[in-house]
């Protein structure tokens, strides 16, 4: 599947009025082009100053959790001694392509943001955590900055293992420390005790790119797009029912129907990726791309994965396939997740087959309740959110399957999963 920039996005006029795109240039930009467009990296000359701008901007984390960025900055800034900042480009969500694209076309926005938050919190160490081996674009960008003396801190690159949880904050810190990318129990949070015990600020790479722009243009500029509760723009990875995948920078609060088709070729939407939620059509066409809107369905925009599931596939089969993947991606550290997720996945697979046992749906519901809130990380909760929304949205399909039927005319898998799901416990490094 190819990822493309969306040059002819729907609502072109509305996007331009909101000053979009902000993050994605039409072609990859080198340091000279970056500085010509945005000016030099706007260091503030002392720690702390940027944090009030970030607070006023209302920027939230773009890695999926939507946590207010200034709060993490303030916690790390308050600490003394050695401190660490990390740009998180693990993008472990199999359907997400936005961080990879951003790092390819606008690496200097991300690297500016990393240096700026490092200055803001008084960090002594900077890291870049990537899904794949560092691309030529990233290596070139770092070399350009080094030659021009742009960076205050050298950036250490670490590659994430190809696991769903590898980008989770505590797993990331474990990996940077040389260990397996496994989540740990909180508290303490990594902002209090992270890499080697040092307070550690972990921000998604897109979040850092927004920081680089807020530092230049201010909070008011940032708030010219988005809603008052959720300002700005966000990168989304959009899957059309024909299978094309595009990264689109969308205004938060944009009508979802301007991003995803809802005609007869589409049977349901998935929003927020594999810890996200299925949304029923046509009801979901009234929703907008912001958490305040989609939470009516128990959904969240997450890291911006938006999928239009084509009408010729079986939603239940798709959901079962993804749930099998999520169960295999349990770190296996917590009893309820280790025991519950494989059972939930097997239950969903049974529902996706023909003529399931009558009690299996109730079993899946009970296991879902049993694992919720009982993991060290949010993997069980996110998986359950995905599963429960599938049981609701694809309820008619479940009834069909109970009678030995299926509405699908194509068996070709639609939702992307990594090739070769790891099965060994050694695959976390």
């Amino acid at each position: 599947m190819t990822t493309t920039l969306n040059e002819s996005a729907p609502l072109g006029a509305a996007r331009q009025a909101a000053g979009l795109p902000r993050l994605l240039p039409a072609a990859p930009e080198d340091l000279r082009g970056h500085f010509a467009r945005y000016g030099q990296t706007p260091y503030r000359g002392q720690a702390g100053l940027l944090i009030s701008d970030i607070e006023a901007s209302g920027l939230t984390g773009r890695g999926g959790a939507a946590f207010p960025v200034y709060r993490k900055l303030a916690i790390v800034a308050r600490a003394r001694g050695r401190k660490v900042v990390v740009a998180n480009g693990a993008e472990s969500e199999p359907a997400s392509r936005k961080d990879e694209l951003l790092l390819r076309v606008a690496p200097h926005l991300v690297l500016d943001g990393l240096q700026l938050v490092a200055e803001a919190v008084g960090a002594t160490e900077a890291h870049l955590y990537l899904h794949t081996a560092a691309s030529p674009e990233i290596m070139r960008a770092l070399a350009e900055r080094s030659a021009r003396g742009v960076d205050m801190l050298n950036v250490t690159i670490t590659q994430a293992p190809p696991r769903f949880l590898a980008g989770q904050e505590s797993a990331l810190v474990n990996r940077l420390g040389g260990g397996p990318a496994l989540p740990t129990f909180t508290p303490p949070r990594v902002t209090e005790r992270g890499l080697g015990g040092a307070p550690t600020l972990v921000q998604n790479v897109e979040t850092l790119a927004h920081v680089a722009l807020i530092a230049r243009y201010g909070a008011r500029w940032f708030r010219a797009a988005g809603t008052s509760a959720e300002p700005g723009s966000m990168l989304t990875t959009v899957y059309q029912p024909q299978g094309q995948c595009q990264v689109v920078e969308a205004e938060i609060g944009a009508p979802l129907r301007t991003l995803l088709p809802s005609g007869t070729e589409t049977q349901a939407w998935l929003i927020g990726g594999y810890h996200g939620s299925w949304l029923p059509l046509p009801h979901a066409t009234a929703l907008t791309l912001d958490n305040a809107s989609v939470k009516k369905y128990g959904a969240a925009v997450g890291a911006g994965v938006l999928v239009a599931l084509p009408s010729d596939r079986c939603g239940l089969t798709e959901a079962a396939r993804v749930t099998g993947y999520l169960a295999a991606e349990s770190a296996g550290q917590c009893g309820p997740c280790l025991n519950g997720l494989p059972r939930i996945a097997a239950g969903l697979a049974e529902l996706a087959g023909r003529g399931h046992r009558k009690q299996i749906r109730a079993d899946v519901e009970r296991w879902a309740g049993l694992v919720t809130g009982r993991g060290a990380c949010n993997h069980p909760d996110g998986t359950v959110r995905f599963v429960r929304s599938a049981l609701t949205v694809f309820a008619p399909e479940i009834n069909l399957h109970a009678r030995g039927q299926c509405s699908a005319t194509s068996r070709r898998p639609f939702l992307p999963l990594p090739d070769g799901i790891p099965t060994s416990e050694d695959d976390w490094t």
Partner: protein
Amino acid sequence: MMSDTLRVNPINCTGHGVCAELLPELITVDEWGYPIVDPRPVPPALDREARRAVAACPALALKLART
């Protein structure tokens, strides 16, 4: 008076089950043997039993957290 809440570290917990035996009023086990802990503050009348359960956990996975 400060109240404490029981909290399980699910990574350390091995599902031994001694906590549920000592404190059935606040802890039950799920179908796989892992504890389900009452999220409400421990009532003063059960404070001693709660401390005993915490001390008895062989995995050091049960804690009383100040709330």
